[in-house]
């Protein structure tokens, strides 16, 4: 299952790289502490977070995440989107909060 499928299923808003959503999704991780996400997430994960600052791109790039999904309709900062485009990390937004979003994505991935 790739990022585009998740975007469609969860009706996510795509903030950048809408033509580069073909990455394979291996799972997901929910976290707002960057050090935790760096230690415990894996390549191909969808990273679900409330953080919107540009440092999330460095983390997603380092860990080779499939995409970042920001919750609660929070807007990625302008410099975050700039970095995301440079690094090739799609940034998506959902109006849901993390618990609900993660639950729905988990269900889709495990269908």
């Amino acid at each position: 299952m790739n990022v585009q499928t998740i975007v469609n299923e969860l009706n996510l808003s795509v903030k950048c790289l809408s033509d580069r959503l073909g990455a394979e999704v291996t799972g997901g991780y929910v976290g707002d502490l960057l050090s935790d996400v760096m230690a415990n997430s894996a390549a191909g994960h969808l990273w679900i977070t409330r953080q919107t600052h540009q440092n999330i791109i460095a983390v997603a790039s380092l860990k080779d995440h499939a995409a970042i999904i920001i919750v609660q309709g929070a807007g990625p900062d302008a410099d975050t989107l700039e970095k995301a485009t440079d690094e090739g990390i799609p940034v998506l937004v959902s109006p849901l909060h993390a618990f609900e979003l993660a639950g729905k994505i988990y269900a889709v991935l495990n269908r």
Partner: protein
Amino acid sequence: MHPRALVQALVTKGIDIAAITDHNASENIIHVMRAARDTSLAIIAGMEVTTREEAHVLGLFENLENVQRFQKIVYKRLPDTADGVQDCENQPIVNEREEVEGFNMHPLFNATDMPLNEVTDYIHHFGGIAIASHIDRSFFSVMSQLGVVPKEARFDGLEISSSLGIAGGRRWFPELADYPFISSSDAHSLEDVGSSCTRMHLESPCFEEIRLALSRQGGRYILE
């Protein structure tokens, strides 16, 4: 930043005292001190530590020896390089002759596993001043991570970022009126040097005078 270029930028901006506060590191401080030797610029040895909660805390120390003792603790409490490895080529140690002496191989971008109060306790234990970094920032600040400035952390001062400034900080945080506020450039590159500073009434530009100004003793104070 190259020590000589940094010193030059500080002198050009009319700064009298600058604290060097690299993230979780301190090896570059001696080189900046040496580069500043022929100027009247005072260099304070410091460090910006990332707590377990991912809040940034500034430690300012009386001398290099104290920050180096603190550094030993910080290195022990950073994760093993195996987790969250980032480019150590981005962490050079540059001397005052602009020669790269080596690279810091610790994961400086990471958080230590020390909770906030432990970090401030250690800073105080080594005779330092503990300041909560950029409390107005929506990430990596005590306010963003905890929602409050805990009294138990015993901060000696709170830093407001250059974009808001001390006056703005006083408007935003009336509940923190009892704390001294400072503002700094938090410069990570030369063009940011001197973008903000704190004006203090001191007898001389040194660590002990800063401590007096923060606690408003002996006629030393921070100009707001």
